[in-house]
């Protein structure tokens, strides 16, 4: 269906669908505030591109691939939606990208973690913008090993996502000369981490890594805080942690944790300026996902403007050809497999003494260059890359 690029805007408007978890676990990191970020991007274009109106529709995917795919299908088949933004739960993103490929429309994934989205699940119809598990493991693990954290203990959520992260971390730790001396798998989800944290503490490892996400991670961190894990000299490394999680935990409980992030609101003047605007609208500081939604929508609309078309392949080609320099990334670029590669940052959560306000939470310890952070194309299983 993805036919030749027509140099025109279909249905005399550009319609963007925002599909995300608006009410569940991932509400804070994307959710309704992500929609506001999207609206900010559209407002910056004056609500129009090349004289055609930009329209936004939104829906709650309830973290369910069923709900997401039926909504996405209706949008692209019935409601003339040109691009779907948001996309948080990995299962949702994979389900929606199948529909996008079938219908020849475009999607920009901003919230999902799974690196498989641009690896075995890559399609010519979506872009994965903010981060994925590859740099998370890579950034955090290699940095900590290099700083002298040689022995590792990994706490893994016992399902596919946790296993994949555990494998990634183990690979990175061993490649850098460290050693994984123990792993425990905990059921998903786990409300009480005491016994796991005690085992981790008893292992005597330099580093305790959390290969889990969401409520599991915050529960584990709270418990580790209660048992004084970091105070007793062990390093706690969370692999997937959002600003909103750290904010909910507070600097007291989360202090000293190292994590990898794609963006931090206070990392430079542009980011600060944009996040001030965001805070005026929402009352909170943006996560990297919010920033990614804004930035990717601007990139998308710029590409529509440049090509004069909202046809997915024409726009995607233009987006790939355009380097990204804005409040989100410097010298970011979108690769052939749909992966947006940009510098990632190793951050450490500030102590309550260092933190000057409730959102002043990270010290950026190190910038991880884009080439080092993301999975290189030479290791890709994506047919768009391998068939060349």
């Amino acid at each position, binding site marked *: 269906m993805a036919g030749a690029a027509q140099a025109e805007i279909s249905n005399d408007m550009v319609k963007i669908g925002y599909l995300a978890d608006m009410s569940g676990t991932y509400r804070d990191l994307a959710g309704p505030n992500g929609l506001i970020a999207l609206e900010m991007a559209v407002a910056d274009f004056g609500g129009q591109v090349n004289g055609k109106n930009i329209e936004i529709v939104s829906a709650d995917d309830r973290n369910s691939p*069923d709900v997401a795919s039926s909504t996405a299908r209706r949008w692209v088949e019935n409601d003339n939606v040109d691009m779907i933004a948001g996309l948080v739960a990995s299962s949702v993103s994979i389900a929606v990208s199948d529909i996008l490929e079938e219908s020849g429309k475009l999607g920009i994934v901003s919230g999902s973690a799974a690196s498989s989205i641009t690896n075995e*699940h890559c399609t010519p119809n979506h872009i994965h913008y903010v981060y994925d598990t590859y740099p998370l493991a890579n950034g955090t693990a290699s940095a900590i090993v290099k700083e002298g954290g040689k022995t590792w203990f990994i706490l893994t959520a016992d399902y596919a996502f946790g296993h994949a992260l555990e494998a990634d971390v183990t690979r990175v730790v061993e490649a850098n000369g460290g050693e994984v001396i123990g792993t425990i798998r905990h059921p998903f989800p786990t409300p009480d981490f005491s016994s796991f944290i005690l085992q981790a503490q008893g292992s005597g490892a330099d580093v305790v890594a959390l290969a889990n996400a969401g409520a599991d991670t915050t529960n584990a961190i709270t418990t580790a805080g209660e048992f004084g894990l970091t105070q007793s000299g062990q390093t706690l490394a969370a692999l997937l942690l959002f600003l909103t999680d750290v904010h909910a935990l507070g600097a007291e409980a989360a202090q000293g944790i190292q994590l990898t992030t794609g963006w931090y609101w206070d990392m430079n003047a542009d980011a600060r300026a944009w996040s001030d605007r965001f805070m005026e609208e929402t009352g909170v500081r943006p996560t990297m996902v919010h920033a990614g939604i804004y930035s990717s929508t601007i990139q998308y609309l710029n590409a529509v403007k440049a090509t004069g078309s909202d046809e997915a392949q024409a726009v995607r080609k233009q987006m790939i050809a355009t380097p990204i320099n804005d409040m989100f990334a410097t010298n970011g670029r979108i690769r052939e497999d749909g992966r947006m590669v940009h510098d990632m940052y190793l951050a450490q959560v500030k102590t309550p003494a260092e933190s000057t306000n409730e959102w002043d939470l990270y010290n950026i310890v190190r910038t991880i260059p884009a080439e080092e952070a993301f999975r290189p194309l030479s290791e890709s299983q994506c047919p768009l890359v391998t068939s060349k």
Partner: protein
Amino acid sequence: MSNSVNPADIHKTMLDQQKSEHRRRLILNLVLLALLMVAPMVMYPVFLMKILCFALFAVAFNLLLGFTGLLSFGHAAFLASGAYTTGYLLTTFSGLSTELGIIAGTLVATLLGLGFALVAIRRQGIYFAMITLALSQLVFFFFVQSSFTGGEDGLHGIPRGQFLGLIDLNDNLNMYYFVLAVFLAGYLLVQRIVDSPYGQVLKAIKQNEPRAISLGYNVNRYKIIAFVISAGLAGLAGSMKTVVFQLASLNDAHWHMSGEVILMTLLGGTGTLLGPVVGAAFVVNLEYQLSQGPLADWVDAILGTIFVLTVLMFQSGIVGQVQKFMKKNIG
């Protein structure tokens, strides 16, 4: 069946009543069928298919709750086992025709239902519900851990294929009429079961189990059969859903799904044939409408409130209330 104790005149009035009720039901069914036939012209077919799949699921569930009086809190396991079996087979064996995949999914769910029934049927009431919940959680963890299900990501890109190698199911309208046919088959099967002498025994068990036992019925066997049929139909609904959406995910196996089907059935009206269908349409539609608007945050709260109100004030559900109203005013 061995009931000949009724005096002949009572029997006759009962038969007359039954006849007029059957006639009314036939008319209603025909009207409904006509509506369903033209529905895809005005509504989005995939959405209608979703409603039909959940309606079939709820109808299957209602056979247990509404007509046998067994509250299963583990029906998600059957929906998911049907969905995953069909999804796995259709993706792995590309030559397999769609209907065989669906039949296989239904069979697996049926067998699983037999296993559940043999364990759970030994207890009654809340214990029965808890055992089915526990077993379905086992099934959930099996699906989380197994590699063939794709874990959290689920199974994706399942081909819709062709029906009997003739009709291309990738076309939404073809797919719709296929789903409609399967739904009708399931619905009519349940209707037939409920009307049959076997269904009468089920109702007797629901009303007064000790009496059914004292009349000489092997109650457990009747219950097991009802459970297995219900599980099989739930599996069929899951298989259909997989083919429609081309994906199978953990949501199907989660206990939320077991709760949702209870909600649909109670809202629509337990113990009525049409109730679960109306309930499914209502819940699916409400979820969709709410998720589009500014109330997205409140979907669960609103559904919960409706549930509480239904249980407190309209125990017979939407269809039950309508029936009461009709009886009172039309006779």
